[in-house]
Structures are given as C-alpha cells and as structure tokens.
C-alpha cells in the first residue's frame, strides 16, 4: 500500500516541564501519555495516540519523524527498498514507543531518522467519537489546532533524502525553490492532498527548522498571534504573514528549547500522484515573495536559526 501521512515529531526538550506547558497551553495540545523522560501529546481533533513526543535532553532539535503506512507489510517493503538504497535501517518493537505498533527506523542521507509504522492506538477526538459537541473550551476561546500539518527539516544532502522519499516511498514534490545554478535547494513534499507533509532545506546536518500545526480559520491565526504576543512568547519578526509558497496564512514562534513552531491555515489541494501536475518553481527574484508574501523579504535569521 503506501505511506499515508506525517504522524508525529519526536523532539528534544531542555526543560521538559516547560516544554509540556508550552505544547499544552500555547500550542493547545493535550497530554496522552508519559514515561520516564518522555511526554506524549496530541491535538484535540486528531485521533491517533500522539503527534509530538518530548524527550528530556541536554540539547534541542529532532530525535526522529514518524510516518504511518497503510499496510503492515509495507514495513518489509520499505526495509528492502531502504537497504537497496544503502540506507541504515533498524526495527523497533511496539513497546519502544508508547501508543503505537512495530516500526522501521530508516536513517536518510541527510541524517534524519524516520520511523515508519502501521498501527497507532486511538485516543479519539477530545470531544469523543459519538454524538460529539464539537466546540471545546480550550485555549482562551480559540479553536484548538486540529492536527500536526508538516515539518521543515534542514541538513546536508537533502536532495538525496528527497530522491529516496520520492522514488522509493512515493512522496510527490509540489513546490521547490531553485538556487542560482538552477538546481533545487528546498523541497516541499506530500504523501496526501496537502501542499506538504514534509519539507527540506539546506542547513546543519540532521536539524529541524520548524514544526507546523494546523488552524482551521485565518481569524484564529490572527487571534493566536495576539495571544503569543500577550504571553511574551518569542515570535518571528513578522507577526503574521502569508507564504507565497502554498499560499498559506502563517505565524512562527519558538518553544522553550528554541525549536521553531508554526501555526498555519491554508487549503491548497495538492496532487498526490507524481508525474501528473508539474511542481511549482520559485527562483531568483520570486523567492522572497514565495517565502513571505506581503513583505516579499526574508528575515535575516529565518533560514539560519535551526535546532
């Protein structure tokens, strides 16, 4: 069958209590599990066990990325494919990570580790799965983020990781940014019908640029920026903006460890299947408008700051 969607991000936390508070109070997730040195969280309108794993650590950044597949046998196929590509793989047991089944860890050429797995325990939507009252009281009257939308990873050899994900795991390239030499240096990839589940850009090896959570309404993005400012959360220079790439409404901010988060709203419907619709290309003078549409300029530290 196939890779279905980005399921979770397992990240490091310098002060795990402060991070837990951030992801519950500021982002608006709920805690769904704990074990020694780890906190598991999920969005209120997502039904799987977790979309974030916080790992107590002396550093910030990414531990690994979780993607689901739609058939248990996909793990063996992915294992064979990854080995054919010369990538290191390792099986993990269901007991290793709370709330999910057996997994296949693959280390990509860019150093990022992916965990492919089939089964997640179901925590259900916060308001229940039967005759629900769909309005929740959480997050100061703002509609909660509905799901983990995408992540931007940074590293060396991202083009090699992208090639593997496209050719072996059937990811599709929806948009790309070209460098002066005409080759792609940033990649927006999907396994579904949204503009990206995952993106890659150049940066320090095996690093994390941001994790994005989906907000259903642009008015809620505005209200969320108001609350970030009110709570003195560190944000990007542009309070609210729109990415030309994908045409989505966005704001960036940081968790207590310095990992960048994003709230995003946008309904871009992307082609799931490779080879049907050509990818959108951003090059030269178009790039600043692609990054930040209104300002058409990229803040100095936007690409440099990663964890």
């Amino acid at each position, binding site marked *: 069958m196939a890779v279905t969607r980005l399921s979770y991000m397992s990240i490091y936390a310098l002060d795990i209590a402060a991070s837990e508070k951030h992801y519950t109070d500021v982002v608006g997730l709920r805690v769904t599990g704990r074990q020694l040195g780890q906190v598991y969280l999920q969005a209120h309108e997502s039904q799987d066990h977790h979309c974030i794993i916080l790992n107590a650590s002396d550093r910030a950044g990414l531990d690994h990325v979780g993607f689901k597949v739609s058939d248990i046998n*996909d793990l063996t196929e992915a294992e064979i494919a990854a080995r054919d590509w010369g990538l290191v793989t390792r099986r993990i047991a269901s007991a290793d990570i709370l709330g999910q089944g057996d997994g296949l860890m693959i280390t990509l050429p860019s150093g990022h580790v992916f965990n492919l797995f089939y089964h997640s325990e179901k925590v259900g939507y916060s308001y229940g799965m039967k*005759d629900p009252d*769909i*309005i929740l009281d959480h997050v100061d009257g703002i509609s909660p983020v509905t799901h983990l939308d995408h992540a931007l990873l940074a590293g060396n050899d991202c083009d090699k990781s992208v090639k593997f994900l496209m050719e072996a795991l059937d990811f599709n390239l929806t948009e790309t940014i070209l460098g002066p030499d005409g080759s792609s240096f940033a990649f927006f990839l999907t396994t579904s019908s949204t503009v990206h589940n995952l993106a890659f850009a150049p940066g320090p090896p095996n690093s994390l640029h941001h994790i994005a959570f989906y907000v259903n*309404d642009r008015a809620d993005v505005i209200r969320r920026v108001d609350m970030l400012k009110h709570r003195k959360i560190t944000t990007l220079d542009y309070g609210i903006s729109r990415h030309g790439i994908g045409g989505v409404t966005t704001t960036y901010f940081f968790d207590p460890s310095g990992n960048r988060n994003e709230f995003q*709203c946008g309904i871009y419907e992307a082609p799931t299947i490779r080879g049907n619709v050509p990818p959108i290309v951003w*090059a030269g003078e178009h790039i600043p408008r692609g990054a930040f549409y209104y300002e058409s300029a990229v803040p100095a530290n936007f690409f440099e700051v990663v964890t």
Partner: protein
Amino acid sequence: MSLLHRGIHRLGYAWIAVKDSRLLKTRKFYTSELGLLETGSEPHRVTFRCWHEPYKFSFVVDHRDTPGLVEIGFHVRDDNDLDSFQKKLAEAGVTVERADANSVLQGLGKSIAFTVPAGPRIRLFATMDMLGYVSGYEGPDWVAPKALRGMAAPLNINHVAFTSPDPAQANAFFSDVLGFLASEKVVDEAGKTISSLLFRMAKNVGGQEVAIYPGKEVKLHHVAFTKEDASDIMADGYYLRSDGVAIDLLGPLRQPYGNTFSLHFYDSNGIRLELCSGGRMTEVHPEIQPVVWSKAHLREALSYYDEALVPEEFFLPCV
C-alpha cells in the same frame, strides 16, 4: 516498487444535468455568480473548473429534459488501477462499460463507468487534459484572478452528496469495492448506517468526497466547493444574497456532521450548492475511526446553531 498510492486519489468531477436549453442562465450563474472558469462547451454541455485546479474540468453541466446527477468522476493512478477496478467490479457483479479517451467527455482519458448499487453512476479515469494552474508554475500568486474577485470563486470542488434508498448498501459498496473510508456516519437504533461521509483524499477541508443521505431514490442532494474559512463564506453570502441568489433556510451553517462551516444555496436551475470550510484531516488508513451519530442526535449533528430550524425535509434531493 510497490509502496504506491493506488486506487482513487482525487474527486475528478461532478456531472449534472439541468433544463436550460442554451445553457445561457447556467453559464451566467457559474461564471458571473459563483466564480468558476468556463473551460469548454459542446452542444448542450458546458464544462467548468475552479481557479486553483490544474485539470480541464471539475464540474460539467448538460442540458437535458430530466435534471439531476449524471455521474461522479474519480481520478485513479494509472491504467493498472482501471484494470484492477474493472476486475473487482465484475467480481462484485456490476456491469462495467469501458470508454475510449474523449468519447464521453472532451479532455477525459479512457475510462470505466458503472452504477453503484443504490447509488449513482461513477466513472473512473487515469488521465484528464490539463490546462495548468491559472497562476502559472513559476512563482505563482496563489490569489484568485481579479476577474473572479467579488464572487465566491471557490478553490476546488469538495464533495458530491446524493440520496439513496439503501444508504447501508451504497456505503458498503463505496467502502468494500472502491476503497472509501468513513470520516463520519449516522446510524439508526439498530446500528444500521443511514448516512455517511466518505473520503479517499487526505485534504484540508477534508473528510468527504461523497456524502450519502437517505432518500426515496438516487438523486442529487448538493455539490460542494471548497473555501478557505468561515469569514470568507460569510462574505460570499453577502455577494450571493445581494444578487438575489436563493440561500438555504439555515444560512451560514456550523455543521457538526462533517465538522464544516458552510453555506447552502441554489443555482439558477434549482441545483443545491454548498461552499464549505473546516472539515476533518483524514488519513487513508484502514484503522481510521469515524465519528458516529445516533439518529436521535441528527438535528444537532446537522446544525450547531439552529437545530430547532432543521427542516424535516433536510435530506430531500434538490431536483
């Protein structure tokens, strides 16, 4: 490589019929009121697409003496999918018609068509002509073309809702034969499905490409188009109302069933249309669980604000 996204990956088009002999009212409504782009015409037929769609059409309107739903088109990956669906459909005892490219609709590749038991006619295709994004492929402004501003100008077709004399049977066929999954359903006292929202895509404003409602016959209930959010839909309602478009009794609607914020209204021929936002992020995964509504909670499932006003005839088809 077999880790491929196979089967249906996209709602391709809704094809309806209206009684409008030269289709002049139809053209005017869809291009100057709703804000679609006209992409082709034949005698008694006009095709449209939404501005964010790269393919030739997502909405087809014929002039016919009997108005209603003609068929729903779904895009599959390739010819292998067409072959395997043909086999699967034959095994399910359904008559399948194969059609050559451009023989049924101009711009459509070769296809197979069949009728879902207690459901509508469906066509599966692997290729459709592409006109390309109106905003181009190099540094596009993902902004509605100026000529469409002041109109709803939806970004995509979202779903097609139809009535069925046996929703459980239609639901089972969509699930078992066509691979659809339910994001939500309504069950009666005996636990039998009387309505369901089914998907094959994982899209924002997601959870349904087809909606099955209970009814006497297989008829069109509505065709829905995607909008970015609730504020947009409130403004779209001003424009439509100021031009005298008939808006559904409930007005702007927060609908727990499907988790949408929407507006229902009627085209110049009485076809019910919907602009919708919100929805659910779904996953094409066998373990996904639907929200289940009991029949006793149907009114509150259909309208969060105006449950007392939900008419008894809510599920009646439009034409």
